[in-house]
């Protein structure tokens, strides 16, 4: 059914959704790019932030966006601690990528079970007064919750970009990522820089988690579903590329949204993962990795 309204609506919804995928994925890409750490627990931290937002809203009526004032510093500090006590000891491993995957897989399992114990497996939903409100642009409708998630994404990715490109520490992070030995020779403290980058990555997972919770119901095991988008964003956008993550997120959102207007919905995942395979074959380093 090639209905212009359906197509336009799908494009709008796809872009908004894609922005949120990008925010969730950008920190994952950062820790993979800078530290060669594939953090399987990344999305689980997003779920943790979603729970903080949920309980803040349910118990005290705090808007989920405001809850980030608590969850972002908390997750940043958690990221620093995890890096210091879990990641640093494995940096001497020959296969740090594999070692980090195994370690963070364990971390994800632990975190999931702690959340299950604390909050059970019940599905939770962030319901604010604007959750199902929309802005009407003729026949095209913009969901306020998706728009908020998208705006959060712009701020989140923008902040990471500014940090990396316009602060001394951010430049040190990039230098470490591009040439660790050269960065060390320039007097950059690799461990400190990596620790800050990891803290930042975990904090960004929190922002992404809250944005995702505006769209999806969640429970502790839901991070396994969110993890799919992380890999998609990084593989399509290129490891460590902030710009790539942003574009990849939008692209994935658009494909997911728009393909439903042209093809049966059951083909969406086939198209999405077909794209992923195609990119891996043609440009295995990702579309935007220089």
């Amino acid at each position: 059914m090639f209905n212009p309204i359906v197509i336009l609506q799908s494009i709008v919804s796809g872009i908004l959704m894609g922005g949120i995928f990008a925010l969730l994925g950008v920190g994952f890409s950062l820790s993979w790019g800078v530290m060669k750490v594939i953090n399987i627990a990344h999305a689980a931290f997003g779920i943790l932030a979603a729970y903080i937002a949920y309980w803040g809203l349910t118990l005290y009526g705090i808007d989920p966006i405001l809850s980030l004032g608590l969850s972002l510093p908390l997750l940043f500090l958690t990221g620093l601690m995890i890096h210091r006590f879990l990641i640093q000891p494995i940096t001497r491993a020959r296969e740090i990528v594999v070692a980090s995957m195994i370690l963070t897989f364990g971390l994800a399992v632990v975190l999931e079970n702690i959340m299950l114990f604390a909050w059970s497996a019940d599905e939770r939903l962030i319901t604010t007064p604007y959750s199902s409100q929309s802005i009407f642009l003729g026949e095209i409708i913009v969901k306020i919750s998706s728009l908020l998630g998208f705006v959060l994404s712009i701020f989140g990715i923008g902040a990471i970009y500014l940090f990396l490109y316009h602060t001394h520490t951010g430049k040190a992070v990039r230098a470490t990522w591009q040439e660790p030995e050269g960065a060390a020779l320039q007097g950059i403290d690799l461990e400190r820089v990596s620790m800050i980058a990891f803290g930042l990555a975990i904090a960004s997972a929190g922002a992404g988690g809250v944005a995702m919770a505006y769209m999806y119901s969640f429970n502790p095991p839901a991070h396994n579903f969110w993890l799919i988008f992380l890999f998609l964003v990084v593989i399509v956008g290129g490891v460590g590329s902030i710009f790539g993550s942003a574009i990849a997120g939008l692209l994935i959102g658009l494909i997911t949204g728009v393909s439903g207007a042209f093809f049966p919905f059951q083909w969406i995942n086939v198209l999405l993962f077909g794209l992923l395979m195609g990119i891996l074959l043609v440009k295995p380093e990702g579309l935007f990795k220089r």
Partner: protein
Amino acid sequence: MRKDLLTGVLVLILSLLFGLVSGALRGSSAAEKPIVIGGSLPLTGTFAATGRWVERGYQFWAEEVNGKGGLLGRPVKLIIYDDKSDAKEAVSLGEKVITVDKVDLLLGGYPGTACTAVMPVAEKYRMLYVSMGGHMKSFSQGYTYSFGSPPLMGEWWYLGFFEWMKTIPPDKRPKKAAVYTMNNPIGIALVESLYKGCKDLGIEIVIDEKYNLPLTTADTMITKAKQMKADLLFANGMFPDGVMTLRACKALDYSPKAIVQGIGSVIPEWTKELGKDGDAIFSGTSWHYKLKYPGNDKIIKVAKERFKEDEPPLYFGFGYAWMQTLQQSVEGAKTLEQTRIRDWLRSNEVKTIAGNFKFDEKGLPKPFVYLTQVIHGNVELIWPPEMRTHEPVYPKPPWK
């Protein structure tokens, strides 16, 4: 001679004494030896939340039976292993309870995938297996020891909805239906009664699409339904995708005459998390605590007092109803001999909190599913009329 006589009398007395003592011992041992009922449930993993409610239903039944003197005069003891939400593990544990633990009776499992996998094991060892089953396919394999009491039958899911819809004047019925179905065995099972019902009532299905889980967006689906002017929406999904679909309906201002949700709207999370937006949604169920069958009042009381649940969870009731069936079969057959219990169940009616059932050769009762609707945050029974707890809300009011 006298000596021989004395020896004989002594032997006789000792024999009698030994016989009496050993008889008494045998008697006391038989009285105390429990009937062991075993199986597995998903106590950890994906289905743990529901599995634990089934377990609580089983435990409550056992407590109650033991409090009333046991089953066939013997106490019951449950052995419940954790299959970690893995159907393969459920099969291994099914074999284990039969061959190693040598249980007297089998416990039904959860979810449908585990039941489907354990049903052939029960058949192989000729053990009675009462569970929800795994939809019609699992009951169509020729098994003779498996019973659904009550079953969870996707293929019957919308029987109640269409029976009720027949009572709506034809000019007020929906004309066009949009059907979105999760692409898995549960979703596929749901559409059978839907196709038949729409055909019988002359409702045209203008959209009939499947989607893979997890659903990433429902916006495009709902935009399509709105553009096609479908005035009946079937969202054949579960809680996460159901919530997305409903939120998309509201955000995109799509108000059909009725929205029918596959699974998910009868659990407390639906009303708790969605609030008023979750109202007026129809669905089906095989058990509800408001059903007017004896025992439901007790279930409500226990759920409230022991588990602080205002509404007894669905699978707490299911677990209890399956055990009621097992209990009545054993008491009816007056034996633990499996084939005799099965034969009794084949030819007699059992009375459970979910209904009174007689079974066909597949091990299924007469097709039934109760129609529910969420009204003012409560799951109400709409059909059959004798079970109705609230007048239905139809057509669905526009979004506020």
